[in-house]
């Protein structure tokens, strides 16, 4: 083992530090010494490369794991698989006698790569997240993309817009070509992301529980010899050090890290996907047990060691058998590079030929992409040893558990001091004019321009598309009325004021959004985007955010299952989100919520439907305009009174909305969030076909002492519903039973005006057609027609 070892033992810290940095490793001297302890000698270069990757924040969750397990509820009666594998799984509908249909969901960030190369970074993000779902054996039925970009009108405005455009292109190029529909996403512009955009991605899949594939070597390997097969793109150095890259501050010279950005290939992925499906189907037909996992951060070494260890086995690899791209690659690179579009299978020896034939002959992988294909690269062994050979030499040999165990830190946290003030309202301002500013704001205006870049129709399952309602809805099982609804949320403006509320409110809004289409919120995933956790204030933001998410999940719970939490089944932590200046992003926990719709034919768009319908507000606007679009745009301040999550109120409101769907009352439903009640009403009106109008009398809010501006622009979570006329008594009774507040807003008329009155006084009138023009063009005007990225430098 002397050849290619890195001297650590007995060397002074300064020398160790120097040699670590010479090799480009990110692990600390202390961590390197820990490696020596674990392997019992100086590690080989390959071993140290593996530890360097596996112990990156991205792979090891070394800063976050303890906080996550302290606060997040991961168990409920619908959970099949919680966090730990590539994706979480819940069951949502029976499939015959002893089986269930399951939803598979995964959620990740691809922030740093997207900042550097927006198109490729975002595309690779989609490519990575769908692999996490595919490798559970599932068919991917949708993706969602929560995006955060810098202020388009700020100092870096041009660059922020160009990054946004590139990211949207990247998502479109990959997702459209792969044939996975876009089910939604959200888009927030905020100066806090000027130097570090956020590109989070969610993928959802469908599988029967009996067909679930685990990312581990099956038990059968104790009795039959199992082989490890690597399939996909030839390994190169394109993503070498990617996991470590995701866990670094964005360097001053972004270009310095170019080696870490992977090259996505949706075409090869598509062919792989159909071939994988064939392999898994054949394994099922033949009753063969296989293990299947995608290659992500940490490459071959990570995937094979984790699969072996999870099954209670060891592995022996021969790097000489790995298909390589043209070029010369060291064993370290081959072991840990993050080359895209690869999977690893553990299959019994007598099934190997079938598998190779499907990939290499039926689907002609070597012809689809030069050097691609399926190759046996190693054996599963009963001894729990992880060994890699290359050129006849052993370049890595350790107990397998040593590699996969990981490390953990207790990071220091310190309460951040924040002082925020409420603005004084200026009574001379015109609500009419102010609202036009709000509705044209890039954070409020229609995202239709963006959504049209994405294929929302492929696979033919779409019921409600992005932009039509608060959540996207698909009919996943042909011939069944069961629907699935998805939403992603996370408002950075709340987290700035109070990171706990930032986390809690993200869950509340995501849950509210799926409820708005009649779905029972059934699981959430979280992508936790923060700055550098080594700073105690940042770690405090993270800690508070997770605490908020945990409380919200327990507080809202699983509707219909008394006492059970809304389970968190998957997620991702993204630290070190800060730019050149060292300024961290605002704390941004992003929540994806999946809901189950009993009958998708009851899920309606947000748009007003019929003349004569009654329009109600479910929930009460409170003096909670802190972080609101109104305060920021009109008073240029965030204010102090951000919404305070009230889980009982949220739960009762959500239950009421689901009950109303069940009763078949809902004609349109929209939650109140950014921009408040008046924005919600305008959004419901501008898409109405035929055009409909409404007059809201603020006297209906009689008891509340709020000023009209506050009533109209408060972002307290609630719902607007359009219900048939003549059922008011029943509605009152239902709301009383569920202990939710109800306000009558008016009824729909054919005259297309939105009026606000208070008693006999007219406060504001807008023409719906005019609102539509402004609303539809707010986002388009940012993006214009130019393509490509312009740097500010």
């Amino acid at each position: 083992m002397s050849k290619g070892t890195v001297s650590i033992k007995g060397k002074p810290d300064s020398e160790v530090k120097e040699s670590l940095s010479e090799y480009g490793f990110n692990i600390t001297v202390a961590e390197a010494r820990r490696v020596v302890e674990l392997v019992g000698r100086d590690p080989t270069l390959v071993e140290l490369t593996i530890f360097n990757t596996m112990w990156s924040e991205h792979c090891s969750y070394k800063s976050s794991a303890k906080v996550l397990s302290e606060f997040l509820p991961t168990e409920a009666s619908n959970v099949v698989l919680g966090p730990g594998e590539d994706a979480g799984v819940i069951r949502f509908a029976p499939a015959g006698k002893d089986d269930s249909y399951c939803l598979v969901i995964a959620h990740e960030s691809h922030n740093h790569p997207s900042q550097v190369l927006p198109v490729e970074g975002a595309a690779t993000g989609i490519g990575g997240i769908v692999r996490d779902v595919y490798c559970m054996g599932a068919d991917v039925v949708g993706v969602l993309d929560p995006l955060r970009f810098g202020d388009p009108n700020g100092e870096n405005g041009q660059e922020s817009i160009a990054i946004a455009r590139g990211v949207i292109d990247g998502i479109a190029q990959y997702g459209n070509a792969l044939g996975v529909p876009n089910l939604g996403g959200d888009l927030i512009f905020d100066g806090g992301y000027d130097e570090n955009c956020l590109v989070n991605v969610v993928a959802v899949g469908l599988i029967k529980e009996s067909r679930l594939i685990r990312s581990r070597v099956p038990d059968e390997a104790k009795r039959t010899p199992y082989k490890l097969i690597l399939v996909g793109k030839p390994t190169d150095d394109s993503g070498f050090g990617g996991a470590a890259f995701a866990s670094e501050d964005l360097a001053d010279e972004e270009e310095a890290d170019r080696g870490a950005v992977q090259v996505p290939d949706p075409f090869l992925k598509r062919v792989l996907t159909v071939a994988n499906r064939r392999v898994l189907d054949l394994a099922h037909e033949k009753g063969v047990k296989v293990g299947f996992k995608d290659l992500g951060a940490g490459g071959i070494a990570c995937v094979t060691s984790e699969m072996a260890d999870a099954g209670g086995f060891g592995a022996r690899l021969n790097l000489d058998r790995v298909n390589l791209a043209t070029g010369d690659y060291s064993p370290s690179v081959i072991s840990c590079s993050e080359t895209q579009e690869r999977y690893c299978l553990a299959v019994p020896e007598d099934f190997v030929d079938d598998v190779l034939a499907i990939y290499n002959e039926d689907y002609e992988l070597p012809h689809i992409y030069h050097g691609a294909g399926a190759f046996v690269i190693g054996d599963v062994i009963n001894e729990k040893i992880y060994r890699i050979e290359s050129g006849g030499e052993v370049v890595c040999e350790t107990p397998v558990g040593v590699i996969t165990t990981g490390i953990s830190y207790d990071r220091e946290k310190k309460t951040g001091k924040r002082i925020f003030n409420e603005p004084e309202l200026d009574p001379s301002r015109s609500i009419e004019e102010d609202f036009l500013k709000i509705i044209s704001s890039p954070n409020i205006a229609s995202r239709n321009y963006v959504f049209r870049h994405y294929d929302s129709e492929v696979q033919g399952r779409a019921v409600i598309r992005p932009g039509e309602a608060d959540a996207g809805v698909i009919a996943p099982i042909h011939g069944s009325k069961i629907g699935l609804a998805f939403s992603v949320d996370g408002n950075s403006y709340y987290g700035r004021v109070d990171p706990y509320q930032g986390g809690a409110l993200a869950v509340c809004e995501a849950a509210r959004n799926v409820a708005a289409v009649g779905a029972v919120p059934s699981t959430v995933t979280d992508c936790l985007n923060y700055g550098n956790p080594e700073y105690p204030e940042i770690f405090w933001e993270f800690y508070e955010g997770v605490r908020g998410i945990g409380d919200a999940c327990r507080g809202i719970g699983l509707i219909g299952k008394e006492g059970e939490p809304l389970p968190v089944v998957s997620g991702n932590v993204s630290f070190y989100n800060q730019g050149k200046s060292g300024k961290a992003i605002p704390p941004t926990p992003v929540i994806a919520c999946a809901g189950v719709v009993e009958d998708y034919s009851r899920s309606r768009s947000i748009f007003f439907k019929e003349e004569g319908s009654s329009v109600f507000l479910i929930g009460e606007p409170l003096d909670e305009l802190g972080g609101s679009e109104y305060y920021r745009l009109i008073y240029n301040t965030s204010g102090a009174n951000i919404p305070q999550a009230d889980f009982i109120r949220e739960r009762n409101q959500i239950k009421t909305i689901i009950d109303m769907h069940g009763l078949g009352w809902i004609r349109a439903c929209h939650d109140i969030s950014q921009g408040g009640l008046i924005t919600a009403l305008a959004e419901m009106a501008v898409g109405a076909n035929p055009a409909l109008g409404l007059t809201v009398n603020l006297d209906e809010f009689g008891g509340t002492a709020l000023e009209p501006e506050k009533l109209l622009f408060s972002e307290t979570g609630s719902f607007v519903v359009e219900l048939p006329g003549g059922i008011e008594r029943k509605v009152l009774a239902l709301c009383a039973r569920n202990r939710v507040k109800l306000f009558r807003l008016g009824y729909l008329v054919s005259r297309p005006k939105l009026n606000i009155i208070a008693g006999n006084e007219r406060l504001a009138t807008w023409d719906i057609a005019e609102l539509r023009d402004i609303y539809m063009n707010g986002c388009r005007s940012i993006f214009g027609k130019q393509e490509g990225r312009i740097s500010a430098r």
Partner: protein
Amino acid sequence: MPDNFSGKVAVIQFPGVNCESETVRAVRAAGLESGIFRWNMPPRLLGEALAVILPGGFSYQDRIRAGVVAAKDTIMDKLSDFARDGKPVLGICNGAQVLVEAGFIPGMHWEKIDLALAPNVMSDREGYYCNWVHIRVEGNNCLWMNKYKEGDIIPVPVAHAEGRFVTNDKDIINDIRKNNQIVLRYCTESGDLDSSFPVNPNGSVENAAGICNPQGNVLAMMPHPERASWLRQVPEDISGKWKAKRRNACCRPEKMEEEGPGLAFFASLVKEMVG
């Protein structure tokens, strides 16, 4: 994957296409047997098929030009004979691009390239565009449309980056028009031909959304009928007469499974084949 296509509608899976499964599903919903034909399967199997559909997606990732690489595949030799025999061939979206790049459409000069499906021209963007549009049925020249009546207005989604029918040869357009080969045109919800975006979503000449060969057995269309084959697939706020139908199915899940505006393309084949 079946190994026998006799009496079936073969849906060809070129590497990179991604609408093969829902296309098979729509054909089956219309009442015909259908299966996925992997591009490198023995060509003779294709010869036995009842009809062939080239589905949507990104064959060879639209590299060089959408459809052109698949158009050069070996299986196209067989498909050429099949189409010339008058058997039904439908290309949807990427399939349409393949048919144009193979010279099956417009098909007056067989296998000669007389048209292109060029990059979309749109007023406020470039590249890919996905949305629901309306198309109008023109003439009754095409066997894939014999269940429609002239003037029918069909809501249907488009999703492509290269969908602009164009030719640099004026005579070709005249011939196509003379032969009534433009059988589908983009239109407003009320059936007016408006050549501006987004009614015409890609700047296509003559608002052409679908063009068939002179014999009417081969059709290349950019919109996706398989994504509009069930009522549930239609957006509830769509304009035109399908809105009432779709809204009427709200809270009635069984109605959601009823026929959507695009199913008749596949049902036309049943009528043609079975009578």
